[in-house]
């Protein structure tokens, strides 16, 4: 780990238009999936991103790699703004940033052998100079992720979940990237196998000096592997801190609640744990609340500012170095000056913009998808 900055994201926004129309679709609103995120990742570190489902973690990760077009903002990767690259330069730049997906199987083309999966990226970047060196490289890759050499001729469906994820990791490694974005790398795996992948990721980082952005909704996993953690809520970062600092002294009410909500496999801890139960549900990202996005569920919500002024991510006096929080009242809450109160859950309006409702122009279309 160093202080050298590898990625610097500033004011990144990704808004997905919601289309709807009579004759021609027109945009009637946006899903504010990522809405103004600033974030810095240092070389060699693991940055963890947590948050509830739908808060924009994956979108952020993808926008970083330009797999989703950002609406605005910049993603400076090692000096170049990825958000502005085009065509062939973008394609070339992709070599240095790779992704690991949640669902190991669907991210592997079922018709490709492992060899072909691994060689494809190398070929795209001219790394497969000659047969011998390629073969050597393949052996290295397999060894690195702990798969037998005989795997090369096999197809993804012939592997177990954990092994498939290893193939996905090997594919990412094949092009010798600097940064790997891992989007829920273990959440689709059996409980007993998750640790294998987590350990592998850590090992690879040690050996290859990789930089990770690990996305998960599971704070325990994130805390385990990350150096620093960003907590997301409704498209923006609400808190960012070193892994331990975050656990020891969460400053944002949401972080507090999140931490307290996670069950620990230890009855002793569980029995004594004091939970902050949040009321209500996550509002729709298409219709985020004004002011602080969290104010609708916040037990520390104040009369002023919270529902009008959107708090920026800031450092707080007396907090751990590098800890930043987006709450107007962080200090007062920490110091116990403000007491939590009960929150009446608000109705979360679903309906037209509900992601559960398929958006189709006609039934015929719906049937096909």
């Amino acid at each position, binding site marked *: 780990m160093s202080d050298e900055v590898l990625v610097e994201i500033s004011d990144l926004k990704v808004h997905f238009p919601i289309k709807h129309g009579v004759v021609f679709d027109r945009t009637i609103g946006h899903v504010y999936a990522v809405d103004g995120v600033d974030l810095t990742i240092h070389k060699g570190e693991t940055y963890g991103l947590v948050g509830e489902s739908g808060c924009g973690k994956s979108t952020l990760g993808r926008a970083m790699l330009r797999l989703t077009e950002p609406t605005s903002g910049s993603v400076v990767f090692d000096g170049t703004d990825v958000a502005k690259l085009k065509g062939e330069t973008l394609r070339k730049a992709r070599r240095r940033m790779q992704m690991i997906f949640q669902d190991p199987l669907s991210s592997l083309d079922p018709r490709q052998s492992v060899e072909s999966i691994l060689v494809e990226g190398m070929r795209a970047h001219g790394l497969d100079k000659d047969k011998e060196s390629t073969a050597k490289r393949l052996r290295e890759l397999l060894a690195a992720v702990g798969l037998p050499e005989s795997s090369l001729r096999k197809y993804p469906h012939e592997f177990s979940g954990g092994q498939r994820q290893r193939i996905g990791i090997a594919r990412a490694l094949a092009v010798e990237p600097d940064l790997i974005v891992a989007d829920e790398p273990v959440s689709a795996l059996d409980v007993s196998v998750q640790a294998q992948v987590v350990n592998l990721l850590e090992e690879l980082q040690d050996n290859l000096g990789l930089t990770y952005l690990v996305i998960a909704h599971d704070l325990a996993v994130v805390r385990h592997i990350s150096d620093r953690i960003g907590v997301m809520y409704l498209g923006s970062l609400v808190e960012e801190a070193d892994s331990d600092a975050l656990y020891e002294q969460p400053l944002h009410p949401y972080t507090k609640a999140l931490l307290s909500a996670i069950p620990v496999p230890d009855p002793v801890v569980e029995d004594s744990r004091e939970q902050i139960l949040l009321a209500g549900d996550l509002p729709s990202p298409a219709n985020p609340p004004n002011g602080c996005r969290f104010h609708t569920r916040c037990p520390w919500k104040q009369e002023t500012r919270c529902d009008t002024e959107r708090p920026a991510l800031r450092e707080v006096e007396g907090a751990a170095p590098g800890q930043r929080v987006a709450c107007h009242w962080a200090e007062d809450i920490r110091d116990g000056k403000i007491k939590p109160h009960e929150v009446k859950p608000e109705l979360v309006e679903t309906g037209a913009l509900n992601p559960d409702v398929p958006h189709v122009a006609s039934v015929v279309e719906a049937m*096909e998808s």
Partner: protein
Amino acid sequence: MTNLLTRKKDKVDELAASAGHSLAQQAIRRMARSPVAIVGAVITGLFLLLAIFAPLLAPKDPYERYLQGEVVLGSGIIPGPRDGFPLGVDDFGRDLLSRLLVGAQQTLLVGVMATLIGLAIGMVIGGLAGAFGGWVDTVLMRLVDVMLSIPSLLLAISVAALAAKPNQWTVIIAVAMVSVPIFARLLRGTMLAQRGSDHVLAATSLGVKRHTIVLRHMLPNSLGPVIVQATLTLATSIIEAAALSFLGLGDPDPSRAEWGLMLGKAAKQFLDIRPELAFYPAIAIIIVALGFTLLGESMREALDPKNRR
């Protein structure tokens, strides 16, 4: 570990089932156990053999007017079965059995070519729409909508009537046009699904070139349903061609031994005096169409991830 989304895991299983390579093998294995599939395969197999070797199998020249002298339509006489003519002759005194056998070849030709042409055009349209999305998709799909909004037989009739110089290909193309929108929509659907899929995203993030992604990843993975549909289309094409023949829009060479043509003519003219002339080709068409349908349906069933376990 908390919160393992088993829901998502189910999907993984499903995908494992539909994974390309295993998919084919599993499907074949499952089909080998299904009587429906076996019947379908046997019928289609026999039909294919028959079609290929028809000229060798036919006992007589299907175009020679052996018993023409004995045909007197004015008195309603078309000679029936007799020595050397086990099924009798048609209204030109030609051997019916030989014509039926050779007809398999023509029928197969019509069915296969119509399907292939429909498939080719449909795949180009659907493939472009699916690969590019956006306005290309919008424009192409509007076109397909239009084709869909004309009932299939009308579409075929229209195309058949359009031909300046009708020949066998007119029928084939007419029938092919009917399946174009079906193939186009099917391929587009699967391609679009592929577009957002993780493995395409993975290839993009690896920096694989766009056309390579389309051709190497998206297209091959979209083919399964298309192949199933093609098998089913073969059956409907044969029937559709017969309907065109019936409406007088069929093959303009009136003496060609083709089931649809034979059926169309006999159903109109000789149902009262010699119904066999209509029944034999009709039964042949029904059996073959059934064969392809059975095969296609069992293939669809076998490929359906829902039926796994």
